[in-house]
């Protein structure tokens, strides 16, 4: 009633901060400046002065201590693996190997110039060149992404929360939510449903996870064969899966098993800077990843 009265009088007070709602036009014109100095408005504002300090200043609330403990996995890489990998990947007089690239049309049609180029031969997508191996591009594990998508979450979103917690317990990193990307009638899943969680590991958490995985989890999996020699995306990124039973071998889960009545399997995607899967597997074998099967003949 009160609001009706206001409207009838034409005294509508708008509290929205957006200019469109305040009766102004939605037209933004950024005027070009006459100088080359970049202006950081946060620094000119008197609010939150401690956030303007450098990130490695202890007074900044975003400060994180960098080296809290020894990282034996990273040290193993720099002390031993790097030079070994350089030696193993080395080939004298190596040439840069062109990847598969899109091809020109033959020009038989007048529409060819404006058409997108033909697909490469033998592949749907372009593949990168294989560059010469030097001391500058020794393969390294860049990151590991743990992807925990659980089917159970479609009926009960609580499973997604549990899955996220499981990831956090294992990795000690904050997971991100995973939503289904589109409607899949066959799975009974709608777009936007919370279906699980994922976490990308880098640096110390990566080392920690890697050593737990290879030293504690893998040895306890019964009849574990290891990574397949045929797995990978051809550009040096490998992936494998752990079932929900195998998850319980992680010490963080195992020590608290009565709390974990239900565990969730996950995908482990390992992103390396290796140029081919073979080299990526070679790199992983150094960390104690068992690898089964033989390499493809035309792996190189």
């Amino acid at each position, binding site marked *: 009633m009160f609001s009706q009265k206001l409207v009838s009088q034409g005294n509508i007070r708008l509290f929205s901060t957006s200019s469109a709602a305040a009766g102004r036009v939605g037209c933004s014109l950024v005027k070009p400046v006459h100088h080359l100095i970049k202006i950081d408005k946060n620094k000119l504002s008197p609010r939150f002065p401690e956030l303007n300090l450098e990130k490695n200043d202890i007074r900044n609330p975003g400060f994180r201590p960098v080296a809290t403990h020894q990282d034996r996995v990273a040290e193993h890489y720099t002390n031993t693996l790097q030079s070994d990998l350089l030696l193993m990947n080395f080939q004298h*007089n190596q040439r840069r190997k062109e990847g598969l690239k899109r091809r020109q049309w033959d020009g038989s049609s007048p529409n060819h110039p404006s058409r997108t180029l033909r697909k490469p031969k033998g592949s749907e997508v372009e593949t990168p060149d294989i560059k010469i191996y030097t*001391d500058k591009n020794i393969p390294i594990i860049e990151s590991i992404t743990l992807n925990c998508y659980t089917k159970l979450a479609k009926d009960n979103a609580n499973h997604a929360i549990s899955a996220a*917690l499981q990831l956090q317990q294992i990795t000690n990193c904050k997971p991100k939510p995973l939503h289904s990307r589109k409607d899949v009638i066959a799975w009974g899943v709608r777009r936007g449903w919370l279906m699980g969680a994922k976490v990308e590991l880098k640096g110390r958490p990566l080392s920690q996870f890697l050593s737990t995985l290879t030293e504690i989890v893998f040895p306890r999996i019964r009849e574990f064969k290891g990574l397949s020699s045929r797995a990978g995306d051809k550009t040096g990124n490998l992936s494998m899966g752990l079932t929900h039973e195998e998850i319980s071998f992680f010490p963080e889960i195992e020590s608290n098993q009565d709390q974990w009545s239900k565990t969730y399997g996950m995908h482990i995607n390992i992103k390396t800077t290796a140029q081919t899967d073979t080299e990526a597997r070679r790199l992983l074998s150094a960390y104690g990843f068992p690898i089964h099967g*033989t390499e493809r003949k035309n792996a190189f």
Partner: protein
Amino acid sequence: MLRSSAKSSIQTLSRGFLSAEQIPSKSGPIQFVRGKRTKKVSSISPQTQKIITQLSVLSARKKVPRVLKLSNEDLVRHDAVQRAWGVYQKDKRIKNKSDLAKQYEAMNNAMTDLKSTNRELYDLANVREVNKKFPLEFRIPTHFPPNKVWYYDYVPKDETKTTKEN
């Protein structure tokens, strides 16, 4: 002991969540007895309670440590330590890089020499071994040695056999 309703509700809330109907009404004061549970049996199912616990574990609240208050002198000292750590790491990185560059150069030179002296040996040395891997026994060094330091009588498994069996 009589307390105002607002205060007592805070005291009971601190033990856990209350359902809407259980939050004491503002009308009359209630008696608070220390140690006595004032709420009835929770209507939250154990499943929901579990999810609440899980969400609270996931949330960042209370996990952010308080900012250390350092004196001016200690701030400068702390800054010096961080700078020194940066310098030390940078030196290490530079040395590592130069070592690798040297190794690469040496390998390249050796192979060039070999090519000019003995072509056959060179070809053998330059074969790309696709299946070459680190042995499974290769370990990331640990702080403490294993119970048995070295397996002198170790015989590696024949990989080809196992794959055939599979």
